């Protein structure tokens, strides 16, 4: 494949609206995807896939603001609703109908909790969109790069149990022609990474183990080449867990979007 080094300019809603255009889908980046250095890589990988697939998309850019998920789970309903009303106003002003996001927490909030406050959109998790793009042939992964590699998928709670999406990420991984090896605690029985419910932002309560260490231990027992996930917070937790066991050299923690971008040589 020829290597071109085109710079991708990510279109914002403000620019599109100024030109009187509408994207087919809005990419909600989320706070982690915008600011966290590791998660930014997921965001870029996903943008490259959207570009390759020829999707007409846009982002809110600096007009995006926290969905309020961590505030809501931490009991601060005021702050959550302030954020929600602001975001809904922005989204509704632009007439947004369809949203994709790479964060299961944003996904859940936008899909399930914004409708009560007047924000009604069709919301997809990026693994669902990837599955669709692959099924429709808009992107094609030729196995090879990952063949013979062992991948295990860690279910993000807010994608799996929280919203019943178990198969989309798996069907995407299966396209990679690699071995998908399941942990004992997977799908409905998936074990939390330890970040949810605003735990990400506070010290853990006294205990005898970190949740992410318990989970990473389970994943590493399979001796995988890659621990795949679909959530920027799980990414942080699992990456820290792998570091805890000094396994960074052998085991990569990757988002499903990164795996696909990698397979596409993007």
């Amino acid at each position, binding site marked *: *494949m*020829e290597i071109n*080094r*085109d*710079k*991708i300019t*990510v279109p*914002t809603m403000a620019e599109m609206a100024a030109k009187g255009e509408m994207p087919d889908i809005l990419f909600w*980046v989320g*706070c982690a*995807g*915008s*600011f*966290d250095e590791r998660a*930014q890589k997921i965001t*870029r990988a996903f*943008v490259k896939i959207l570009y390759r697939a020829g999707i007409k998309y846009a982002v809110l*850019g*600096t007009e*995006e*603001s*926290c969905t309020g998920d*961590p*505030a809501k789970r*931490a*009991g*601060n*309903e005021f*702050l959550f*609703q*302030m*954020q929600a*009303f602001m975001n809904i106003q922005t989204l509704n002003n632009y007439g947004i109908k369809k949203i994709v996001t790479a964060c299961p927490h944003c996904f*859940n909030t936008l899909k*399930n*909790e914004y409708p009560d*406050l007047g924000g009604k959109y069709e919301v997809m998790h990026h693994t669902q969109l990837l599955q669709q793009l692959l099924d429709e042939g808009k992107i094609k992964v030729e196995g090879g790069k990952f063949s013979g590699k062992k991948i295990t998928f860690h279910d993000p*709670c807010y994608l799996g*149990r*929280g919203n019943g999406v178990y198969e989309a990420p798996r069907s995407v991984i299966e396209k990679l022609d690699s071995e998908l090896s399941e942990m004992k605690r997977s799908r409905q*029985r998936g*074990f*939390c990474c*330890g970040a*949810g*419910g605003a735990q*990400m*932002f*506070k010290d853990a*309560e*006294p*205990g*005898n*183990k*970190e*949740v992410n260490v*318990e989970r990473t231990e389970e994943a590493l027992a399979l001796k995988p080449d890659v621990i795949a996930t679909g959530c920027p917070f799980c990414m942080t937790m699992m990456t820290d867990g792998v570091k805890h066991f000094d396994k960074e050299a052998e085991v990569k923690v990757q988002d499903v979007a990164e795996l696909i*971008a990698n397979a596409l*040589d*993007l």
Partner: protein
Amino acid sequence: MSLQQSAFIILTLISFGFFGFTIFRLAKIFRLTKKEFRFDKIGERTVTTLLVAFGQSKMMKRPLAGILHAFVWWGFLVITIGSVEMMMDGITGNKKSLSFLGPFYSFVTASSDIFALLIIISCIIFLCRRYFTKPKRFIAPEMKPSSRTDATFILSLILILMVTLIGMNTAYVTSDSNDYSGSFPVSFYFTPALSSLGPEQITTLEKTNWWIHITIIYFFLNFLPYSKHFHVIASVPNVFFTRLEPYAKLNTMESVTHEVKLMLNPSEQSADTPPPQRFGVKDIEDVTWKTMLDAYTCTECGRCTAVCPANITGKLLSPRKLFIDLRRRAKDKAPGIIKSGSNFSDGKSLIGSDYITEEELWACTTCMACIEECPVDIDHVPFIVDMRRNLVMEESKVPSGLAVMFSNIENNGAPWAFSREDRFNWASEIYYGNK
């Protein structure tokens, strides 16, 4: 009317009278709770109830315990038809009042007879498990010795119930061996054991078993509401009224919506200001009837705690304990409110050192593993978040990290201390075809 008949009628009246009294007292507790609408989607609710409550679908995740428990439950359901017949017989003085049902009667009696045996086997295995293999989930700080005693007691009662049922049926089949109604494949097998007894002894045996059986049933009925075995009754409505939304959706607090709208748009004073109320859950008056029903349904099985990441990693939180505490708190506080009115206070609350502590509440990752696992569809996460809401919005008691996160969202629109203007910086250097 025979002496036996009169005695039975009196026993029945006492038994149902006391049961009515218990339900009346429970209703008073539920009247202290908050409203919540759970009467939509009746079709979907019915299907869920058939699957989860009657079909025991969530119990089957642990297949052995699941199938044994299903034997006891399904057995209970068919045997109850027989119990109703026994009451009819006792009151009217007839024998086998339902035998006019013909083939259906044979079906019910035969399946009751078989289930009685299956229940005996299940109860023996359950008892062995409690005393010998001791699954980890039965051992926890919130599991007081009384909980095990309660379980042993109930299992033993059920055993006696089933032994007397088979005893009664065997005697019945033996005495009327040529002409009896119904079908009793298991009891029939035992008839040779009674061959040495005379007809009078057999009748006495049948009567004795009958009386022991029905007396225990009446006792059972009245004991249930005071033990975790109330789930036999409560789990069916609890599953029926379960939340039919994605687990991860939390409710929107309308009282907050109202205030936030005023803040965003002060000119928009609306007439229908909801009355001021306490935010979140601090004590029993703040929970909805459904959360209270959860507490009365919890079987203390510990499936939730066994999968809880906080509990597994040694944190204080045990999702099972939250509902045990709520039920205990209702028992401790409700009589006071019922007697002295809503201003009653005993200086304690549900959130506090005597019941649920802040440390437990903040340890939850809201991973929903507990909800997924609970065989009777108890909804832990909304309850936990409701208590956090009280801590945060009423008491301003927040772990320091979360206070920082709140102010970051307020000031920067992100949970971290990054500035809004930098939000789009990730897009500045993206090269296609270059990793």
